[in-house]
């Protein structure tokens, strides 16, 4: 998004440290800025890529207080056991109307984005969730089944490979039950294979239509995938007739996920897909063939360009230059899909440093950036609770199903396979603006999130003036020098509300909150 502004408005900071932190994190904090100034952007970036060694004590401590977050990283079947042990009522709510497992994952995702020290990792997790979008949107059988597999998807497909190798992630996604369910592999038949997955594999996940693939390629790929099926929770077996696949004879486990091969529905023979050819003559050759196809797709120059374009949109500008796309694609190709090498190339590309102030914060990013700037944590006294036998389970959060849903950007909730758009034009509308602006007020007041502890955001100085408060608060939130006209506007707002010389002893907290509210309201805040 290209912007122009008049003299007197607050401009985005051109400081390379601030620029890098705005792009590769959900928002800089003064501590983070200090750290990066000390060790340098490159060293910080390398630490971030080596994410498992970045300590995350505060986040871990917070999550440990709430037992339900354990399940995000555990076998989702444990939800079921937990529900039985705790006699959670109604039992079905875990998988249908209240959708506990998925809500916990959503909340976990938001809290991690806001407070994990592994910021690049969290951002790439979101990036890949958008790239390989899967979403359960309702309460139908398909959605329940998808809910059931999404935690594992998050853990073993997205988080496992977010900073690893693209081919590994593609291989995992291709045979993961969540993807199979989402793109209707369950409905596939031998003679009439469902084309949903094979189409998106080519169109969205890898080569895109620019590669010139044909409908025959899609059909051929759909035949290769036609036998993949997912395991159903035991209780749901009785309902399998809904999908009309009663009577299957030969089901073979496809490790490492809850996936099976339905041999009667698998097509065999020789498959030609674009420039790839492979033969499948027995059940054991299906998986190797899929991997071989994926390997071909990852090495295709158009896949490299797809990933380069998307990384460009994520970190550089809505319309990355051809040179950027070609440069990044060549690193992707030469590193054989290594995500870390490709990201380093993005950071070091000349287009990156030239792109200050060109990216618009999507609603979710903006939301998280406020939480980070104000250093607030979810206010769990505002959560809905599922009553268990021995404990309560906060499952519903006004953060996700309230505010982020109103903003249209709840995590893992875009209904279509193409993921949330990463360009400004998709996000600009009136309702979204009013919702966003009103939520700013919620933040500084402390409703869904805790009330900000203002003394943590800046060091109080009892003797200072309102003007000095304005400068220091804006500096700690914006990391740019406040424009002259904007300073006057904020100063006038304080005067209008509290008089020319307000009683700072009595009104300090409120005045600080109003200043913060107005600083966040400035147009420059909407950019990253």
């Amino acid at each position, binding site marked *: 998004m290209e912007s122009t502004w008049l003299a007197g408005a607050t401009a985005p900071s051109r400081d390379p440290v601030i620029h890098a932190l705005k792009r590769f994190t959900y928002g800089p904090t003064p501590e983070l800025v200090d750290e990066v100034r000390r060790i340098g952007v490159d060293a910080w970036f390398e630490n971030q890529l080596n994410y498992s060694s970045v300590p995350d004590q505060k986040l871990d401590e917070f999550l440990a207080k709430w037992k339900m977050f354990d399940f995000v990283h555990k076998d989702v079947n444990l939800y079921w056991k937990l529900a039985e042990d705790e006699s959670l009522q109604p039992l079905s709510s875990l998988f249908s109307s209240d959708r506990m497992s998925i809500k916990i994952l959503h909340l976990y995702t938001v809290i991690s984005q806001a407070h994990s020290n592994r910021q690049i990792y969290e951002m790439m997790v979101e990036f890949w969730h958008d790239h390989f979008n899967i979403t359960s949107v309702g309460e139908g059988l398909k959605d329940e089944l998808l809910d059931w597999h999404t935690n594992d998807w998050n853990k073993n497909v997205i988080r496992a490979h977010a900073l690893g190798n693209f081919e590994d992630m593609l291989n995992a996604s291709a045979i993961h039950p969540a993807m199979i369910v989402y793109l209707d592999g369950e409905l596939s038949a031998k003679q009439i294979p469902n084309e949903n997955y094979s189409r998106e594999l080519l169109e969205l996940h890898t080569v895109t239509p620019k590669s010139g693939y044909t409908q025959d390629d899609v059909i051929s790929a759909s035949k290769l995938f036609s036998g993949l099926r997912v395991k159903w929770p035991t209780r749901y077996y009785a309902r399998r007739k809904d999908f009309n696949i009663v009577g299957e004879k030969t089901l073979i486990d496809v490790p490492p996920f809850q996936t099976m091969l339905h041999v009667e529905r698998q097509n065999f023979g020789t498959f030609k897909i674009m420039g790839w050819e492979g033969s499948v003559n027995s059940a054991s050759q299906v998986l190797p063939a899929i991997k071989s196809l994926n390997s071909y797709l990852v090495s295709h120059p158009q896949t490299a360009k797809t990933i380069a374009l998307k990384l460009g949109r994520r970190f550089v500008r809505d319309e990355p230059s051809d040179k950027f796309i070609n440069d990044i694609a060549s690193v992707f190709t030469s590193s054989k899909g290594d995500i870390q090498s490709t990201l380093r190339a993005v950071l070091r590309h000349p287009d990156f440093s030239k792109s200050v102030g060109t990216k618009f914060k999507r609603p979710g990013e903006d939301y998280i950036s406020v939480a980070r700037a104000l250093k607030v944590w979810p206010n769990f006294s505002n959560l809905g609770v599922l009553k268990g036998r021995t404990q309560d389970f906060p499952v519903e959060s006004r953060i996700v199903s309230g505010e982020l849903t109103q903003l249209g950007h709840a995590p893992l909730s875009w209904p279509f396979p193409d993921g949330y758009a990463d360009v400004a034009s998709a996000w600009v509308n009136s309702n979204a603006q009013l919702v966003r*602006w009103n939520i700013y007020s919620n933040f500084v007041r402390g409703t869904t999130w805790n009330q900000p502890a203002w003394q943590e955001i800046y060091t109080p100085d009892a003797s200072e003036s309102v003007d000095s408060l304005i400068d220091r608060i804006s500096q700690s939130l914006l990391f740019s020098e406040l424009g002259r006209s904007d300073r006057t506007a904020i100063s006038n707002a304080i005067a209008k509300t509290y008089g020319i010389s307000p009683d700072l002893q009595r009104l300090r907290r409120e005045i600080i909150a109003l200043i913060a509210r107005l600083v966040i309201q400035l147009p420059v805040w909407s950019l990253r």
Partner: protein
Amino acid sequence: MNTEEAIARCPEGREGFTRRQFLQGLTLFGGITILSANGVRYSFAASTTEVPDVVIILVLRGGFDSLSAVVPTDENLMRKARGQIFIPNSSLIPLDRDFGLHPALKRLMPLWEAKELAIINTVGAPTHSRSHFDEISDVAYAAYGEKNKRSGWMSRFLDVAGTGSVVQAVGLGSTTKQLLGGKQSSVSVNGLDNFKLEGIFGYRPEDISGFIDETHGRWSNPWADQAKSTIRALDLIARAGAQRSTVKYPGSGTGDRLKDVAALLKAGIGVRAVDVEFAGDWDMHANMGTLENGWLTNSLSDLAGSISALREDLGILWSRVTLVTVTEFGRRVDVNQSNGTEHGWGGSMFIAGGGINGGKIHGRFPGLDEKQLKDGDLVVTTDYRSVLSEILTRRAGVSAEGVEKIFPNFRPEVLSVLKHLSDTPLPTSFPKSVAAGIGTVMYEKMPDPSPPSPSQSASSTPSPTPSSTPAEVKKTTGRVRKTITCVKNEKTIKVTGTNPKCPRGYKIKE
């Protein structure tokens, strides 16, 4: 793209444009017609100045089972197909010889009798995927054969014929992003009362909006520009929020939304198009309920009660409203084993308003016999875009050329479901302030198609299944048309028109 660009970009554009203008101007109307940059037709002769209709799209999300609403009276076939959910003729409200209305829709009958409500058979999308994901978005984008589907047809409608008011397009409910998505800025409202800025501490809402206006006024980018519109819309929407109504709406989400629609129209703030989502789910796979109560009956009752209350609430304003129901697909003819129905294809569409050829069922019902179905579904005989096109041309001031921009790769069929705007003069008691808000369009009455010749009618009677590619031309309007074939990535579409062109990315196949 404006005309200058169009001419600059396609070398053949200038000639085609002039030729069409010439034909239109001289051959048909004996005057000079100028096609404006945005596709609205201005003419120095043979046209009138009219206040157009406000177009209201009521989205029935989930897949509306029209066979439970507009019920065929062939009891033998219906009993066999519908089993447990069969509705006997004795329970139906008679519409004509072949159809009866579900009793829960009885509040629609006064509109039917006043000829302000029509039903169209058997309407649907050209695609038959039975997928909610694909269909609801495709129905909203209505750009079959186009790869980039980020703009909804309603947004393109306003690109072509909008008033420029910040509140010309208002969305209520969650489909807004799709129908109204695109470059045309619109206002999405989630309850009129929620469309406001909250103050904080002693800093009042008007202080915040002033602050936003001032600080965003120093910037220029799409976000800051929209912010200025949003701030301007606040007062307009507040004027709508201040409208009072004594009409009793059903106490439902849909009733609340239609009450907001009435307030938006009564406020006279320049609303041209409304996208409102029915607040309920029509995806009734199981347990539809009984004739007396349950999911289906309650939903139908809500639908009829809300539309009927809207009509009452709008009073004379109803004369400049067209409301139409849209759904992603109809449902399977046969009941399933859970007293529900599966995803299907075609279905009936309701259309209501002051300019309707109402009190009758339009279109053609394809038949319930097994051989007449497509994979167990009612066959679509009328592309929903034909209905929308007719609303836009006959009631909303869009030219035929404008419709080509709104629905690419498509030639609409003339249905005559709607009256010409020029045949329904604005009532003298129509409030001047509301009319001024809506504005006027130059309306040029296109002649109705001549009755089909025997050979034409033969080709449009019971049916070869409509193809899943964009609809082909069924009727002509007197001008010479030709059809060309366009290809892209092995995908073939046909485009018909007086001067047909392939959409961007497609190449003409000689």
